[in-house]
């Protein structure tokens, strides 16, 4: 395509001239031309043969005898078969038969004077040949040009096709930013005619990188289009080829995908958080069960291994204040031996062991990815390291066990594979677990100590009770003897004095019993022996014991049992103790009037009411009166000689029997104590 279209067509001056000579006789004046090397002569006998020969061997010039015009048909054949050759008629003048042919041939035929000198003839033949050649050249050239044009057209059609069939909109934009070309996709994209787009302003495209995004306004909203620009040429001037692709859907899909990922991430985070809470809740439940030390620790280690770690170690400070490895639990049962070996491996106090550090600083430790040199630092020797590596250590958390401001030990949680490194959230869970666990361990310890203390206390109580009673019994024994007049009968004054001794001793015995009761109840060692108890019988017993006291204080004592056959299943001794206490108090705190003990059945409960017309209890005291050692004022204590334990003992006893006690009172008017006991109890509730 880069060749110039104008090319001068020059005949080749020195080329050989091919002459086809038609001569019937084989004779011709033109044979002289053979003498010149330029000319090659071919002879044929007739016009028909000439036509045939021309088919096979094209000639530049065909010469026929002007004196013998051929048949019209033959002449036509010759004319049609000339193939660009020039026809020369050798004659001095055209015979009539040649006239029509010559007319038709026009410039393609000429008269060759037969009598002209050979030089002239040669010149004329040469010229005729040149013409033929020029024509042929032109024809070839034209064919070539036509071929090229077709090729160009095809090529253009192909490119057009490419541009049209392209899914992208394609624009050619000139240096001023105007559109010079738009494909049909572009026309559709801009909702315009191609013709309208041509010449429209688009803009000088500016982008960083290969592509940029544009917005196309479209009824109240917009499309997003990706534009790619390359520098090129258009009709000799610099231009840009911009291809645009509608990516609105793609953008929407991307945004949807992003949103989906965000939602999924949020969901995962929420699920992880929920799982952590569940774990802590479970842990809380397990740890709050009453356990002894050993059990607590095993449970604790197992708890961690189920959810939070592949293996866990529990460290505790022993009695000498040294940190010991108490428990090692591993998720994989096949590694139980290795776990045990590690547990039994000694831990010296100057180790730079993370558990020591954590216990000292009381701060948790998180190592999301344990490096080899860190492992070396943490372990005391090769064997230790080997055991640790066998169990697997990729991620590590160590949290302190601190309860009631006392450092108890530490827990180490290990993830054996790198798949799930610990993060800050995991550490928070572990830390929380550590605090609860510490509390559980401390509680277990306190419980054990309390139990031992209780045992001690009970033993002490037994001793005290025995030691106190013995002399008291002696006092009472001897006073009885003296009262009976043994060895000597007493005077009236003497008798009165002995009576006072007896009363004081009895009271002292009563106080000791009260103290002992309280202590025993407090230690929680009391058992309850259930029987079928007749309410009336019990109330009669109580009345019998306290009648003298009432009489002495000039108070009326009323007993009022609802029905004669009111029965309940309870411990009769305890019930008696309760009622003696309450009725006794009522009598003591009532100056004048009456005390009443009533019993009745209410909804499956037996209700005992002890009411008096005494001084009453101030409202602000009501909530305290069941507390041990509490009395409204000290003077009362001195006056009545009580320990202030009575009502607390009553409450404990009532609770022991599965019932309740409360009080109604009004200052100046009196009080009423109400004890409710279940008529029928289940055996284990009374245990």
């Amino acid at each position: 395509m880069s060749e110039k279209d104008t090319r001068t067509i020059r005949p080749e001056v020195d080329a050989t001239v091919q002459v086809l000579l038609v001569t019937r006789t084989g004779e011709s004046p033109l044979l002289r031309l053979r003498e010149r090397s330029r000319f090659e002569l071919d002879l044929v006998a007739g016009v028909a043969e000439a036509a045939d020969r021309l088919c096979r061997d094209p000639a530049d010039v065909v010469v026929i005898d002007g004196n013998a015009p051929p048949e019209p048909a033959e002449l036509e054949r010759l004319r049609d078969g000339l193939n660009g050759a020039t026809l020369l008629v050798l004659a001095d003048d055209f015979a009539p038969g040649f006239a029509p042919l010559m007319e038709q041939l026009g410039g393609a035929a000429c008269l060759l004077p037969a009598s002209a000198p050979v030089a002239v003839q040669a010149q004329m033949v040469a010229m005729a040949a040149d013409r033929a050649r020029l024509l042929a050249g032109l024809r070839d050239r034209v064919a070539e040009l036509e071929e090229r044009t077709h090729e160009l057209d095809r090529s253009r059609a192909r490119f057009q096709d490419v541009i049209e069939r392209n899914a992208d909109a394609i624009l050619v934009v000139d240096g001023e930013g105007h559109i010079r070309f738009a494909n049909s996709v572009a026309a559709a994209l801009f909702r315009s005619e191609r013709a309208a787009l041509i010449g429209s302003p688009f803009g000088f495209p500016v982008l960083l990188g290969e592509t940029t995004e544009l917005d196309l306004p479209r009824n109240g909203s917009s499309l997003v289009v990706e534009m790619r620009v390359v520098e090129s040429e258009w009709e000799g001037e610099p231009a840009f080829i911009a291809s645009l692709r509608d990516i609105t859907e793609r953008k929407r899909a991307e945004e949807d995908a992003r949103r989906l990922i965000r939602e999924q991430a949020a969901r995962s985070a929420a699920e992880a958080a929920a799982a952590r809470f569940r774990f802590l809740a479970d842990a809380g439940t397990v740890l709050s069960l009453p356990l002894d030390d050993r059990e607590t620790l095993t449970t604790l280690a197992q708890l961690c291994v189920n959810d939070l770690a592949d293996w866990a170690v529990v460290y505790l400070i022993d009695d000498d204040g040294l940190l010991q490895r108490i428990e090692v639990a591993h998720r994989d049962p096949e590694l139980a031996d290795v776990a045990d070996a590690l547990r039994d491996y000694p831990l010296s106090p100057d180790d730079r062991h993370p558990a020591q550090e954590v216990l000292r600083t009381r701060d948790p430790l998180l190592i999301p990815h344990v490096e080899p040199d860190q492992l070396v630092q943490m372990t005391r020797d090769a064997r230790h390291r080997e055991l640790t590596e066998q169990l697997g250590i990729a991620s590590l958390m160590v949290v302190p066990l601190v309860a009631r401001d006392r450092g108890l030990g530490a827990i180490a949680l290990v993830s054996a594979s790198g798949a799930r490194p610990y993060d800050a959230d995991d550490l928070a869970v572990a830390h929380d677990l550590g605090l609860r666990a510490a509390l559980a361990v401390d509680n277990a310890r306190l419980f054990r100590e309390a139990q031992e203390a209780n045992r001690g206390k009970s033993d002490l109580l037994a001793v005290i009770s025995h030691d106190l009673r013995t002399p008291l019994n002696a006092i009472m024994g001897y006073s009885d003897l003296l009262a009976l007049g043994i060895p000597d009968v007493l005077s009236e004054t003497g008798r009165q004095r002995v009576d006072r001794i007896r009363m004081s001793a009895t009271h002292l015995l009563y106080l000791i019993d009260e103290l002992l009761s309280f202590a025993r109840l407090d230690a929680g060692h009391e058992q309850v022996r259930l029987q079928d108890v007749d309410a009336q019988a019990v109330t009669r017993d109580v009345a019998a014991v306290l009648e003298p006291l009432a009489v002495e204080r000039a108070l009326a004592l009323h007993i009022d049992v609802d029905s004669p056959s009111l029965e309940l299943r309870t411990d009769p001794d305890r019930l008696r103790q309760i009622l003696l206490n309450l009725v006794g108090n009522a009598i003591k705190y009532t100056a004048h009037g009456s005390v009443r003990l009533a019993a009745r059945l209410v909804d499956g409960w037996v209700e005992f009411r002890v009411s008096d017309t005494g001084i009453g209890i101030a409202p602000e005291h009501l909530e305290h009166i069941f507390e041990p050692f509490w009395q409204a004022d000290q003077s009362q204590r001195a006056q009545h000689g009580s320990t202030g334990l009575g009502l607390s003992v009553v409450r404990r006893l009532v609770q022991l029997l599965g019932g309740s006690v409360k009080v109604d009172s009004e200052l100046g008017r009196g009080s009423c104590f109400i004890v409710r006991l279940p008529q029928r109890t289940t055996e284990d509730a009374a245990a």
Partner: protein
Amino acid sequence: MTGQTPRTRRAIANLKRICDEDLNGRYELQIIDVLEHPEQAETEKILATPTLIKQLPPPLRRVIGDLSDKDKVLLGLDVWPRLPEGERDSSA
């Protein structure tokens, strides 16, 4: 611009930078949302945005794209910032 899209925001940010750094406050900027003013899109023959049109001084020039290549933008707008005395190269 066509509404509040990421492209709009980018273009405005880039434009602000160019105005601050190269035009030294000697400019007047009008921002037109073709969603709110579709008739402007017609009048100015806006095919796509972000499109920046420099009206004065003549000649009228138009630039389309993300405006992040400062030099190309200025070239496209036919705007030649005057370099302050002593400064050699203002391109980022």
